[in-house]
């Protein structure tokens, strides 16, 4: 259990305080200095009739993914927990709510479902909760008390955290919950003895935590975001909420618009006036924005859109993760409509990537779609960001004084990028349009002009290649099996490659935050050195594989994990071994 850390799953109904349990558990472990990752999984309902689970994987070494299976299941709802039992490893255990009598244990609905090789600890959660908090509401705190003992962790950090979290509700409430914690802990000590011992190395520094969405918001504010417009949508809303609070303190403003169309429209307006702006959304919102994204392409106005993907199509699976929006990001516009598409793989890349998105958008005057996903956006990890703060950052290419004498907004240049004057600046004015236009910006429908301007707009993507980060290449460079992936599955894939190597098969991987354009030479060279190429992704049709096939002429082995099921390390390891045979 200890080598790869411990994964705990709290499971119950929506409203059972599952997410709070996760926060207290992970908060205490982060204070102890351990690395961890939290993945909340809840239904689209707020209270009742919906299942809610939260997984916390903690380890003394780097946690890259949620791994395979769970070590501990804390069952707050018997019914909901039955299907979760299948994920518990043989070395693991289950805590469930049961009155303290032989008879109650025998008749408990969960008992007969628990496999014989898994240890079960019945704890009277409801009874202890009522004894201390006069309601069922403290069951989650009792369970944390029980868990802390069974896993061999000291109680002080938990007590401190419960106190900190609940003091705002009054000292009495805080004390009630501390009592609830102690009852659960003492009950296990008196009845069961410790199940395992999670070694916490000496000298670890307390860690703070952050989510992918928070990293996106922070990255944007740190690199000069001045205006944000958005409309609430799961799972992107937290970006908007953080920006709403923080941006006004940093000289900017967040506008909640009447819909996603208004959001992207005012973002375009802000960029037209020369100020860094962005919006955040998820698939259905991105679909609504597609016409204005096209306007950005045609009128060469930057846009930055953080799209936190969820299950689709249509309203789809609002609270489940999927990588299903690559097609709409790449191709969702009328006409030939090239746009920058990026996908961060880690929380750090949410931060650095969104800053790169702004730099590319502004320098190359083009929309950038930044494809995060629910899993990456909502998962809580240890904060290991290296902040790069430049509140007045700009990468806009301005005209020289000479060029201003005869200024054309869409002047043809070697790079395809035209120097850019914004309203309020002296020297030149112009009009832009979503219609085809000549260098002046005035509408023009001549075939020659259209071809020339299409060339100009696509040339920018060639020029941009000079500014792209080098792709990540990992693994054994002589391996014949190569993988490529995009976005959040990277961590699980790296773990899968490590598993396969331990089991005798080595492999290598290439991945970039850039999906379009991409550092093509490096990718081509990598693919040329592989005998087999595996492309795992979290969707049903292999959207990234399609891009790779048409761009590099490769014939990869595709692994599709549509929605809900995240890519698992075991699955990747097995695939690598299967291909090797």
């Amino acid at each position, binding site marked *: 259990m200890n080598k790869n850390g411990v994964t705990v799953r709290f499971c119950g109904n929506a409203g059972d305080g599952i997410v709070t349990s996760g926060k207290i558990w992970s908060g205490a472990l982060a204070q102890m200095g351990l690395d961890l990752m939290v993945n909340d999984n809840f239904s689209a309902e707020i209270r009742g009739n919906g299942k809610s689970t939260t997984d916390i994987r903690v380890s003394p070494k780097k946690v890259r993914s949620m791994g395979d299976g769970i070590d501990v299941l804390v069952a707050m709802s018997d019914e909901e927990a039955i299907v979760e039992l299948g994920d518990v490893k043989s070395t693991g255990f289950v805590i469930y709510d049961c009155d303290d009598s032989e008879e109650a244990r025998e008749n408990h609905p969960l008992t007969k479902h628990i496999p014989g090789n898994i240890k079960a600890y019945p704890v009277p959660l409801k009874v202890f909760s009522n004894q201390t908090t006069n309601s069922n509401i403290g069951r989650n705190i009792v369970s944390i008390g029980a868990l802390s003992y069974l896993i061999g962790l000291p109680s002080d950090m938990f007590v401190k955290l419960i106190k900190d979290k609940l003091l705002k509700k009054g000292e009495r409430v805080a004390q009630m919950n501390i009592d609830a914690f102690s009852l659960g802990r003492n009950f296990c000590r008196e009845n069961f003895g410790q199940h395992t011992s999670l070694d916490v190395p000496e000298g670890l520094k307390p860690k703070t935590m952050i989510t992918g969405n928070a990293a996106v918001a922070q990255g944007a504010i740190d690199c000069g975001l*001045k*205006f944000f*417009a958005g409309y609430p949508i799961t799972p992107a809303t937290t970006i908007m909420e953080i920006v709403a609070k923080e941006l*006004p*303190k940093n*000289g900017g*403003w967040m*506008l909640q*618009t*009447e*819909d996603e*169309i*208004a*959001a992207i*429209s*005012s*973002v*375009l*307006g*802000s*960029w*037209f*006036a*020369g*100020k860094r*702006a962005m919006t955040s959304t998820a698939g259905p919102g991105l679909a609504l924005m597609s*016409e*204005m994204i096209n*306007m950005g392409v045609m*009128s060469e106005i930057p846009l930055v859109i953080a799209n936190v993907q969820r299950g689709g199509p249509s309203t789809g699976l609002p609270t489940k993760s999927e990588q299903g929006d690559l097609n709409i990001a790449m191709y969702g516009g009328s006409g030939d409509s090239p746009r920058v598409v990026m996908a961060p793989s880690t929380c750090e890349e949410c931060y650095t990537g969104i800053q790169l998105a702004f730099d590319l958008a502004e320098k190359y005057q083009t929309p950038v779609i930044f494809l995060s996903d629910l899993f990456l956006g909502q998962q809580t990890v240890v904060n290991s960001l290296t902040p790069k703060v430049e509140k007045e950052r700009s990468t806009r290419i301005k005209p020289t004084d000479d060029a201003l004498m005869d200024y054309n907004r869409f002047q043809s240049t070697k790079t395809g990028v035209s120097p850019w004057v914004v*309203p*309020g*600046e*002296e*020297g030149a*004015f*112009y*009009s*832009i*349009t*979503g*219609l085809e236009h000549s260098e002046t910006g*005035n*509408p023009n429908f001549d075939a020659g002009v259209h071809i020339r301007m299409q060339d100009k707009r696509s040339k920018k993507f060639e020029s941009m290649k000079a500014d792209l980060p080098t792709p990540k290449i990992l693994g054994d460079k002589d391996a014949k099996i190569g993988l490529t992936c995009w976005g959040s599955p990277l961590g699980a894939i790296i773990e899968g490659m490590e598993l396969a190597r331990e089991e005798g098969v080595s492999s290598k991987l290439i991945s970039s935050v850039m999906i379009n354009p991409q550092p093509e030479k490096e990718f081509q060279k990598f693919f040329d050195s592989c005998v087999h190429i595996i492309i795992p992704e979290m969707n049903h049709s292999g959207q990234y594989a399609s891009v790779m096939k048409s761009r590099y002429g490769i014939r990869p082995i595709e692994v599709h994990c549509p929605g809900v099921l995240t890519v698992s390390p075991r699955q990747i390891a097995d695939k690598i071994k299967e291909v090797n045979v």
Partner: protein
Amino acid sequence: MNLLQKRHVLESFERAKATKAKAFRDELPTWCPGCGHFTPLQGLYEAAERLEIDAKDFVLVSGIGCSGRFPFFIKGFGLHSLHGRAIPVATGVKLANPELNVVVVGGDGDGVGIGGGHFPHAARSNLDLSYLLLDNAIYGLTKGQTSPTSPMGMVSSTTPYENISKPLNASTMALTYGATFVARVFSQEKDQVTDLITQAIAHKGFSFIHVLSPCIEFHKTITYESVEESVAHLPSDYTPDDHVEALVLSESTDPIYTGLFLEKKSPSYEDRMNDVKAGLQKPVASV
């Protein structure tokens, strides 16, 4: 073509030439000779001159339709955006740089049809934008289809038997949405058009001008003659400070009143935004 129409055609050529002479842009307006849109364009030029607005600080945002071409004929920055989206685009421009004078121009299809969802929110926020809605009660650029402000009974290619939906009244909508400056004009009354555009731009907050601008090419019933016959200035003793009275008069169809229905002093969205930001700068009193 009757005499009145001929007069308008000649006048509009003169205006087009005047546009060119003023060297605002090197583009001649592309509208049909006699189009109702020439006068508000002229009014906008004069208003900008009267208010001494520097071209570098002037941004005109339009949607799609005949009115959408406005930005190409003015001296300043222009943004010919998407169908129905002029208001939210202008919102972004204004909030990014509140120093700019931002004017929105759109038609009836653009403003109360496809973009109808944006209009209330700009009005209720009291953003400092001036919105000119040029209402010709028809889709002109697609050659004469029924619009959301077309009268009941109108026959067109998309309502070949008759239009069986009631028309929207854009002035009433603006009043209901909470705009702090609401006016209606007949596009041919040049002095009134110019005066009201000037006042609207000077107004701090969301100002709305409903311009009745007949389409000479496609509209069979809403013509210069018919509008001229049905409009009347608001009563001379009317003061534009009573919301309820303004609503009653804006709904009148006989006559159709023109003039300033309502003008209210109220902090703009930008004022309130600056208050919030200023509050954040203040040191928090220790408890």
